[in-house]
C-alpha cells in the first residue's frame, strides 16, 4: 500500500488523521479489500472552461455582472466550504424522516453514496442525524474506487472515524476500519454494544420521500417529499430540514406573525431558501420568501414580505464579525407599494438603513448606531396621497454609546451599570412625522419658539425656529437587586424573593430641553408548589421633558369659539411635560406540565395624566396585535390578561391571549384575541 495524500476538502474528522477519508487511497499493487483489486484513487474531475473565446462581449459582460451580483453568495459559500461535511446521498423504495428523533430511515433497494467516494447498497438504512452515524443492513455491498466488499451490515460512526463492518465471505466476521483506512481492517475488534441497533420510531413519519441528500451535522434535503401534519400528507416536492448548530440560520428578517408555516425548499451547509405561509391580523393570509446565506462569522439574509400583497417590505440583513472584539451589522428595508402583480409604476418606495457597529473592551463596550431613511424615493408628486409633493423627508441619526458591564457593589446584593453617549439627529427637508404643527412646506426636525415679530397694536406673528439638527448627550445608570430571599430558606416553596430595579437616564438636547426617565420597580415573588408561582409588583415610571424656556403649554379645555376642546379634558390641563405612571401587578402562572401553561396578570394603573375615555388614542399594535408601547398615556385603570398555552400537535404549541378592560370607555375586551402557533 502506498500512501497517497489528497487535498482535504471533505469530511472533517476529529481523529489524529484530521483529513479523514480523503487521505486514504489505493494504488495498483497495494493490498486489496476483500480480495478485489483496487484501481487508483479519487481525483478531481477537470471542469470545463467557464468562459471561452467564442463568447460575445455582451455575454461576457452579463456573466461578469452576474458574477459581481453573486460575490456575497460566493463569499458565503467559500466560508462554508472550509468546513464542509460529508454529503450522503440516499435513495430507497421507502424513505422517511422522523422529526422527534432526527432519524432518517429507509427500506428496500437502499443505495448510499458519500461525497468521499463510497457506494453502499443494502436492504435497510438508518441514520441518527444528531449522533451523526448511519447503519446499512441486509445484503450490504460496499464499493469504493473499484473495490467491492459484501457483508451483512455496516455502521459508520462519522464523528469517530470508525466504520464497523460485518463481512460475509466463507463465514461472518467483524472488521473495523480505522480513520478511513479500508486497506487495513482490524479484524475481530470488539464493537460498541449499540453499533447495529435500529431505533424505536414513532408510528407516523414527519416526512416521506424518494431520495435524500444529507449534509452531516447540517441539513437533510428530501426529494419527492410529503410532509405529514396531524396525519394529513402535503406534497412538497423538495423539503429541507436544517439542523445545523450554526444559529445564524435562524436570524430572520421577517416580521412577527400569528401563524407561520415554513417550507424550506432548498438549502445546504450554508444556505437556506424558504417560502412562508403566514397570517397576521393586519395582512391576513399571505406568502413570504426568505433566503439565508450563512458562514461561520457572517450572514446575509434577504426577505420579501408579504410577497402576495401590494404593500411589500424587502429586507436585507448583513452581519460580519471581524476578529474577536468587533462586529458590524446592517439592516436595510425597502417598502414598495406596487400592486399585487408588480404593475408599474410603483405608488410609493421608502427606504431605511441601519448600521450598527460594536467594539468590545475588557469591561465595557462601545456602540455606534446609525439610521438613514428616505421616505420617498420616487420624487415629488409620485406619492399616492393628497400631498402632491409627497413626503420628501430623509432623516438621519447617529448615536455613539459606551456601556459598562454589570458590576456588583462590594458584597451587597446590589449591581450597577452605567452608560453614556453622544449623537445627533438631522433632517433638512420634511417634518410631517415630527412634532406638530409644522406646515408641510417647512423643514426641520422640530419647531420651537414663539412670536418673534411683534408690532404694536397688532396680533403677534408666530415665527418658530426650525431645528434641522438636534444634538444630544445621554447618561444613565441601572441599579438593581436580583433576588433577596425572605422567609424559610430551607423550603423553596416557602421562600419569598424580593427584587428591585432602578433605571435613571437624562438626555440633554441642543434644542434646549432635557428629558429625564426614571423607572423604579419592586417585586415580591413566591413559588407555592411545583406548578404554581405568583408575583406582586409595583412599578413607577417618571418621564419629565423640561424646557429651559417655555415648554409644554397648558391645553385649553374651551376652544376659541366657545366649544369644549375634546382633546383637553379637565385632568389634562395640569400636564406640563411630566408624567407618572404607577402600575400594581399581580401575576400567577400554573404550569402542571411542559405541555400546558395558564397565566393571569391583573394590573391597576394610577397614572398622571389620568386616562380619559376616547381622548388618548389607542396604542399602536404590531401585526400580531400586541401593543408597541410597554406603558403609555391613557391606559385603562384596570386590566386582566389571560394567556393559555397548550400542545396542539407533537411539535406545535397554541398560545391564546386576551385582555379584559372592565368596561373602561365601553371597552370590555381587547380588540382581538392574540393567537400564536408556536412550532417546537
Amino acid at each position: 500500500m502506498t500512501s497517497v495524500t489528497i487535498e482535504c476538502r471533505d469530511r472533517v474528522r476529529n481523529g489524529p488523521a484530521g483529513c479523514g477519508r480523503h487521505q486514504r487511497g489505493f494504488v495498483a499493487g497495494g493490498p486489496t479489500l476483500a480480495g478485489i483489486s483496487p484501481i487508483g484513487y479519487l481525483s478531481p474531475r477537470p471542469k470545463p472552461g467557464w468562459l471561452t473565446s467564442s463568447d460575445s462581449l455582451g455575454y461576457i459582460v452579463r456573466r461578469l455582472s452576474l458574477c459581481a451580483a453573486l460575490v456575497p453568495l460566493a463569499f458565503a459559500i467559500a466560508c462554508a466550504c472550509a468546513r464542509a461535511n460529508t454529503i450522503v446521498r440516499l435513495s430507497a423504495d421507502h424513505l422517511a424522516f422522523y422529526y422527534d428523533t432526527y432519524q432518517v430511515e429507509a427500506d428496500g433497494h437502499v443505495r448510499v453514496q458519500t461525497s468521499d467516494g463510497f457506494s453502499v447498497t443494502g436492504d435497510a438504512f438508518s441514520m441518527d442525524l444528531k449522533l451523526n452515524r448511519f447503519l446499512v443492513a441486509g445484503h450490504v455491498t460496499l464499493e469504493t474506487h473499484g473495490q467491492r466488499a459484501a457483508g451483512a451490515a455496516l455502521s459508520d460512526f462519522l464523528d469517530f472515524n470508525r466504520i464497523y463492518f460485518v463481512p460475509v465471505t466463507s463465514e461472518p466476521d467483524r472488521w473495523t476500519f480505522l480513520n478511513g483506512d479500508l486497506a487495513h481492517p482490524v479484524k475481530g475488534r470488539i464493537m460498541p454494544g449499540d453499533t447495529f441497533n435500529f431505533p424505536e420510531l414513532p408510528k407516523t413519519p414527519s416526512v416521506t420521500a424518494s431520495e435524500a441528500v444529507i449534509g452531516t451535522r447540517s441539513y437533510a434535503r428530501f426529494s419527492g417529499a410529503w410532509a405529514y401534519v396531524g396525519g394529513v400528507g402535503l406534497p412538497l416536492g423538495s423539503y429541507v430540514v436544517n439542523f445545523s448548530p450554526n444559529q445564524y440560520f435562524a436570524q430572520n428578517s421577517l416580521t412577527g406573525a400569528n401563524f407561520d408555516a415554513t417550507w424550506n425548499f432548498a438549502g445546504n451547509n450554508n444556505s437556506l431558501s424558504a417560502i412562508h405561509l403566514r397570517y397576521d391580523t393586519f395582512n391576513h393570509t399571505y406568502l413570504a420568501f426568505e433566503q439565508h446565506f450563512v458562514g461561520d462569522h457572517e450572514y446575509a439574509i434577504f426577505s420579501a414580505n408579504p410577497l402576495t400583497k401590494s404593500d411589500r417590505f424587502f429586507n436585507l440583513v448583513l452581519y460580519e464579525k471581524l476578529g474577536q472584539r468587533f462586529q458590524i451589522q446592517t439592516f436595510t428595508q425597502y417598502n414598495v407599494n406596487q400592486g399585487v402583480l408588480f404593475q408599474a409604476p410603483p405608488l410609493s418606495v421608502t427606504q431605511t438603513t441601519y448600521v450598527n457597529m460594536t467594539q468590545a473592551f475588557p469591561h465595557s463596550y462601545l456602540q455606534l448606531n446609525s439610521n438613514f431613511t428616505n421616505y420617498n424615493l420616487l420624487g415629488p408628486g409620485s406619492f399616492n396621497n393628497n400631498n402632491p409633493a409627497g413626503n420628501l423627508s430623509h432623516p438621519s441619526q447617529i448615536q455613539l454609546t459606551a456601556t459598562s458591564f454589570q458590576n456588583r457593589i462590594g458584597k451587597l446584593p446590589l449591581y450597577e451599570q452605567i452608560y453614556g453617549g453622544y449623537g445627533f439627529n438631522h433632517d433638512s427637508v420634511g417634518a410631517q412625522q415630527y412634532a406638530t404643527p409644522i406646515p408641510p412646506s417647512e423643514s426641520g426636525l422640530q419647531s420651537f419658539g414663539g412670536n418673534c415679530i411683534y408690532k404694536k397694536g397688532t396680533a403677534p406673528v408666530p415665527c418658530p425656529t426650525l431645528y434641522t439638527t438636534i444634538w444630544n448627550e445621554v447618561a444613565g445608570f441601572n441599579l438593581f437587586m436580583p433576588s433577596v430571599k425572605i422567609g424559610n430558606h430551607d423550603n423553596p416553596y416557602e421562600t419569598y424573593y424580593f427584587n428591585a430595579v432602578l433605571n435613571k437616564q437624562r438626555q440633554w438636547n441642543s434644542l434646549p430641553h432635557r428629558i429625564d426617565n426614571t423607572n423604579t420597580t419592586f417585586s415580591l415573588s413566591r413559588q407555592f408548589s411545583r406548578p404554581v408561582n405568583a408575583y406582586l409588583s409595583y412599578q413607577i415610571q417618571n418621564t419629565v421633558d423640561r424646557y429651559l424656556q417655555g415648554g409644554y403649554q397648558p391645553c385649553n379645555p374651551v376652544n376659541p369659539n366657545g366649544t369644549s376642546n375634546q382633546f383637553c379634558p379637565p385632568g389634562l390641563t395640569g400636564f406640563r411635560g411630566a408624567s407618572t405612571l404607577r402600575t400594581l401587578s399581580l401575576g400567577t402562572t400554573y404550569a402542571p406540565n411542559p405541555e400546558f401553561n395558564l397565566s393571569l396578570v391583573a394590573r391597576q394603573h394610577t397614572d398622571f395624566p389620568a386616562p380619559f375615555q376616547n381622548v388618548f388614542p389607542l396604542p399602536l399594535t404590531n401585526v400580531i396585535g400586541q401593543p408597541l408601547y410597554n406603558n403609555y398615556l391613557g391606559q385603562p385603570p384596570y386590566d386582566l390578561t389571560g394567556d393559555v398555552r397548550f400542545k396542539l400537535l407533537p411539535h406545535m404549541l397554541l398560545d391564546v391571549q386576551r385582555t379584559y378592560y372592565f368596561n373602561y370607555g365601553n371597552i370590555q375586551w381587547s380588540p382581538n384575541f392574540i393567537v400564536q402557533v408556536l412550532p417546537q
Partner: protein
Amino acid sequence: MTPLRRIFAVTCALFAVALIAAGPTIAVTGQLLAYQDGFVFFTTGDGFRVAPGVLIRDAAGTGSTAIVPAPRVWARAHFDANGTVTELDLSKAPLPQEGSFADVARFAVALSSPVPNPDLLPATPAPGHTLVPTQHFSGRPVLVTFTVQVPPTTPFSASVYITTDASGWNAQAIPMDRIDTLHYQITRRLNSGTIFRYLYDRGSFQSQEIAENGLQRTPRQIVVTDADVRTIRDTVYAWLDSRSNASGQQPNGLPTPYNPNPFPNLPSGFPSPGIPTPRPPHPPA
C-alpha cells in the same frame, strides 16, 4: 451382574448421556439485522448459522407467516445443541425479551477471534491529571427548568423565549413565564444525553440576547444528564434591540426615526412645546 443387566445399564447410561447432550433448545428474542448466506444476524452484530430446513413461523403462534426475515423484523430464534438456528418466529412488533444473547454468544460465527477495543477501554489519565469518569446516558426524560435573569432594562410587559437548534432556531419556540421583575422560567422535558443549544430572545432575532461585551454571542449549551430534575440558571446581560437611546432595527413596518417627544401617546390636539406667547404691551392710553 448378568450380561443382560449390563446391557440394560449401558443402554440406560447412553440414553441418559444422549439426553443430557441434546439438552433443551435455547430461544432468544431480538431484532434482525440481516438474513442471508445461510446466517441470521441480530442487532447485537452476532451472526448465527441457520439450519437448511429452518422453520419460519409467526411469533404469535398462528403457524406460518407472510413475514420474511429481513432487517428490523423481530424474531425468536431457537437454537439446537450445535448452536444452529432451527426455528425463527417472526413479528413486526417488538417481542417480549426471552433468553439472553450472552447464553448464545458461543454459537456466534466469526472468523476472527475477539480483540479488545481500545476505544472502549477507560482512558489512561495523563501524568498529573485525574481521570474524568465517563458519563452514561439512559435517554429517559428529564425535567429541565430554565430560569433566566434578564437585564434590568427589560420592559415589564416583555415576553421572553428560548430559541434552540432543536426547533430550527425558531425565535418563539419556547415561551417563558415571568416569575418576578427580573426572572423568567420554563420547564421542559428533555431526554438525557441531549445536547441542547439555546439562546434567549424577546420573540425575534432583532431582540436576541447579546453577550456581556455587546457582541452577538454563541449559543449556550447543556448536556442533559440522568436525573429526576435539573435546574439551569442563566443571566442575560442585554438585548440586541435595547441599545440605550438608539433605534432598534425592527423589520415590522415603516421606521420611526428618533423623536424628541417622549410622550408619543398624547392626544393629537395637545399643543406642542414652545415659547410662551408674550403678552402684548398695553396699548397706549
